[in-house]
């Protein structure tokens, strides 16, 4: 977080310039202070700290930049490597000349400072000092002699006259101050030329120690601001043995000119000595200041290198980012043109490119949307078309199946998309005729064909009116096939029903109506002429009229039966158990004189169907009667009535089979066995199986007839299970 703050503050060019300026001022002051300037000498440590803090800040900034750059390189941020190269280049370009300048500056500094100091100058100064000493020594010797003389004069002076004598001696000797000091250091008497100076200048205790050893002292003493004085101390030896040993201190003013010259020599010598001593520390200080300048310059240069490299690389990085975005599919990226140079030209070209790309993509999207719209429209049309549509490619791979087609064929369209059409037949056996027809027409090379195809599926007999058209043109779709078909089962059935209804109506009208008058006429003829005829003719007439009446009856029955067949029934559909119904019907046929063996194999005990009990009973009667007639007179006659559940969980049905071991169906009638008036029996109305088929169709079931290889006929009926049955079975599963 702190690093981030440093980086944010540091990246602004203005704050950094201000910082550099401040550091530069601080460095100038530091350099001045190093030069022992009075003004900044006091601030030296503070300036040193400020500069150090600035350097630390800059160093932190540079480190943060370096770390950031390394991280960017590791993350492969665009422009990071280029920034690194530029930074390294800038830094090398800066470090080399700065280091050279630093090296030579340091050399000049060392030698320059050393060159200030000359052995001859030092010697000269020392000689000057020695000269001063020599000149002073003569004067000091005189003063000492004079003082010794004065001390001798004082030695015999009475204590009461000491002050006067002292005054007299001072005036005569020209001393500035004469003081007589007791053995314990107290001032006994004093005489000074300066009236204002009441307190005499006291000698140091070490000097008084000399006096105790009866030694003399002579020396120069700079006293306060008064200038240079010659101080002489001489013990005053009294001739009296009991007398206290005094010390006479005499202060002589050194002449002003001499004093000034001596002080000048002293000052120059001291200054030179000090400077000479300070030479090493000064070199160290200058080197340090120079090093700080070097480090500051280097750090500033490195920061500037970072800043410049970033500024240089920024447009390139932006371009790289934008190119990446374009590669990702974002064409809305626009870059701001910051300069009018080659990079600016590049940026403008990039903007043009993205603008064009965006426009062309927009057009593509619009076209795609139009295509999608058309496709959706087509799909909607196909989906709502009452005809089934299947389109295939040239290699018979299914490309599209509409809803009606999948419903009519009883298949899941999604399952077959992209697969060959032959897979229809392999997974749905009842579609084999459909597939065969299509394959046949393809192999025959029919470009446009129409065929009625009959299917026998789980939902019963189905007739499809198919029209196939081979797609022309060139390209991918060439050679493809579009099959359009209509389920005409219901239509055909309705047409047939209508035809039979018409036939029945005609029969009733045209045939049944004249039958009654015929019958009545025959009976009237018989009644009127039978009695009046002889026996032979009467018999003939009787037989003839009987025949007429019987035949008319038969015709009436036939017409009634036919009318019954053609009449649309009023079904009373109820949920019922088929097995129970079968058992009831079979029970009626079970009599002792029945020579036929009736076998029931009822498996589907709990299965329920929806049906009209009366019609189904009729169905069973017709079938059993047919079977009984077929096996009549045959040895070991046997009729098997069986029920069982067939089909899967979703499409389960009840199969009812009536099988006999009679002669079976003839092959020539097997195809039309359920048509009216198709029969293999010498007697029969020819409507038995037709009615059975009608009842099955009324119940939405399917019927088929077949002959066994070893003889015998089998009629197989499949009826749909009731919805309640599936609920029941669910409950059973649960229980």
């Amino acid at each position: 977080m702190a690093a981030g703050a440093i980086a944010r503050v540091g990246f602004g060019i203005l704050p950094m310039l201000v910082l550099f300026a401040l550091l530069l001022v601080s460095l100038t002051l530091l350099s001045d202070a190093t030069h022992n300037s009075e003004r900044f000498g006091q601030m030296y440590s503070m300036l040193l700290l400020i500069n150090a803090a600035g350097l630390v800040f800059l160093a932190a900034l540079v480190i943060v930049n370096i770390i950031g750059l390394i991280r960017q390189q590791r993350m492969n941020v665009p422009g990071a490597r280029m920034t690194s190269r530029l930074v390294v280049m800038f830094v090398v370009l800066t470090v080399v000349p700065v280091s050279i300048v630093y090296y030579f500056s340091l050399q000049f500094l060392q030698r320059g400072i050393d060159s200030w100091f000359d052995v001859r100058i030092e010697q000269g100064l020392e000689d000057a000092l020695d000269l001063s000493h020599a000149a002073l020594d003569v004067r000091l010797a005189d003063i000492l002699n004079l003082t010794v003389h004065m001390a001798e004069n004082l030695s015999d002076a009475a204590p009461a006259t000491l002050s006067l004598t002292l005054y007299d001696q001072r005036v005569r000797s020209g001393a500035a101050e004469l003081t007589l000091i007791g053995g314990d250091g107290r001032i006994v008497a004093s005489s000074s030329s300066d009236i204002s100076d009441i307190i005499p200048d006291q000698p140091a205790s070490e000097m008084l120690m000399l006096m105790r050893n009866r030694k003399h002292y002579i020396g120069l003493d700079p006293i306060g601001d008064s200038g240079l004085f010659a101080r002489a101390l001489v013990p005053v030896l009294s001739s009296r043995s009991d007398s206290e040993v005094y010390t006479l201190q005499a202060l002589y003013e050194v002449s002003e000119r001499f004093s000034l010259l001596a002080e000048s020599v002293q000052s120059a010598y001291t200054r030179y000595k000090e400077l000479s001593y300070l030479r090493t520390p000064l070199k160290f200080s200058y080197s340090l200041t120079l090093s700080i300048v070097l480090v500051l310059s280097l750090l500033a240069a490195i920061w500037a290198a970072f800043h410049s490299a970033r500024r240089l690389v920024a447009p390139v990085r932006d371009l790289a980012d934008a190119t990446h975005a374009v590669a990702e599919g974002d064409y809305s990226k626009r870059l701001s043109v910051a300069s009018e140079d080659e990079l600016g030209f590049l940026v403008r070209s990039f903007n043009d490119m993205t603008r064009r790309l965006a426009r062309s993509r927009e057009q593509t999207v619009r076209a795609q949307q139009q295509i999608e719209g058309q496709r959706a429209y087509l799909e909607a049309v196909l989906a709502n078309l009452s005809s089934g549509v299947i389109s295939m490619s040239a290699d018979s791979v299914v490309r599209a199946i509409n809803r009606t087609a999948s419903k009519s064929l009883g298949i899941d369209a999604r399952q077959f998309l992209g697969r060959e059409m032959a897979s229809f037949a392999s997974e749905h056996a009842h579609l084999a005729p459909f597939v065969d027809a299509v394959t046949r027409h393809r192999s025959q090379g029919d470009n446009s064909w129409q065929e009625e195809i009959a299917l026998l599926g789980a939902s019963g007999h189905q007739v499809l009116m198919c029209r196939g058209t081979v797609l022309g043109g060139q390209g991918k779709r060439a050679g493809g096939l579009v099959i359009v078909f209509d389920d005409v089962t219901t239509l055909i059935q309705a047409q047939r029903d209508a035809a039979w209804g018409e036939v029945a109506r005609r029969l009733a009208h045209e045939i049944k109506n004249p039958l009654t008058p015929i019958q009545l006429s025959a009976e009237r003829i018989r009644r009127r002429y039978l009695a009046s005829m002889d026996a032979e003719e009467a018999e003939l007439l009787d037989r003839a009229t009987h025949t007429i009446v019987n035949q008319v009856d038969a015709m009436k029955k036939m017409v009634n039966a036919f009318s019954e067949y053609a009449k649309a029934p009023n079904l009373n559909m109820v949920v019922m158990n088929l097995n129970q119904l079968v058992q009831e019907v079979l029970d009626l046929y079970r009599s002792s004189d029945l020579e036929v063996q009736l076998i029931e194999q009822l498996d589907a005990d709990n299965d329920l169907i929806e049906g009209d009990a009366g019609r189904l009973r009729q169905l069973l009667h017709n079938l059993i009667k047919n079977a009984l007639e077929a096996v009549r007179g045959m040895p070991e006659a046997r009729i098997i009535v069986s029920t069982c559940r067939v089909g899967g969980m979703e499409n389960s049905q009840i199969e009812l089979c009536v099988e006999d071991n009679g002669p079976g169906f003839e092959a020539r009638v097997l195809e039309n066995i359920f048509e009216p008036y198709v029969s293999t029996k010498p007697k029969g109305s020819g409507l038995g199986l037709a009615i059975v088929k009608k009842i099955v169709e009324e119940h939405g079931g399917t019927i088929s007839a077949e002959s066994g290889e070893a003889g015998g006929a089998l009629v197989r009926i499949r009826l749909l299970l009731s919805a309640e049955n599936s609920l029941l079975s669910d409950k059973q599963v649960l229980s």
Partner: protein
Amino acid sequence: MFAEARLAGTLPVSWVAALIRRRAVVLLLSAVCCSPSQVCAGHPGIIKLEDAHTWRIDDGEYLEAQFSIELSSGAEEAVRNAVPLLFELQVQVVEIHTWLWDSVDIEFTEQRQLQYHALSESYQVKDLNAGTQGNYSRLDDALRAAGKIKNMLLTEQPLDRGPDYSIRLRGSLDVESLPTPVRLIAYISSDWNMVSKWYKWQLVR
């Protein structure tokens, strides 16, 4: 006689600030400096309190003290090369609080400058507070004179009433007054780090 006498109830803030600044510079230079062998040569300088006592006369409390100053080899070399040294003798009268920080009630700083005088071949000791000066031919005598506090009037009010007081003394070489080039070395060299501990005693009533 006393250059600076102030009554205050606070810690010596200026002194603390100076200390912090000095330590910071020392730390910095220690980090920068690459030749530590140059700055730690010779024997170290020592300042210690030899004798101190207070007495009371009618007009107030008086102090007399003697610091013993031994110059380090570097400092001695500097003095012999005419570099002036400034010694500071700090005197504080501290009011003792039982529960709070002790507060400095009175503080004096005696400044003594020691310099070699080539012409007279003597060492000058200037009392910068009083403006007096003494000349000594021997360095030892000069240092003794520099470490002497004589008849210092601490306060005119008697301290034997009211709260408890203690007196503390410390002597040090003022590095900040050295010539700038030497100061840089003085910051990092133990040779120049001449400062006594605080000597403290409680006033007996």
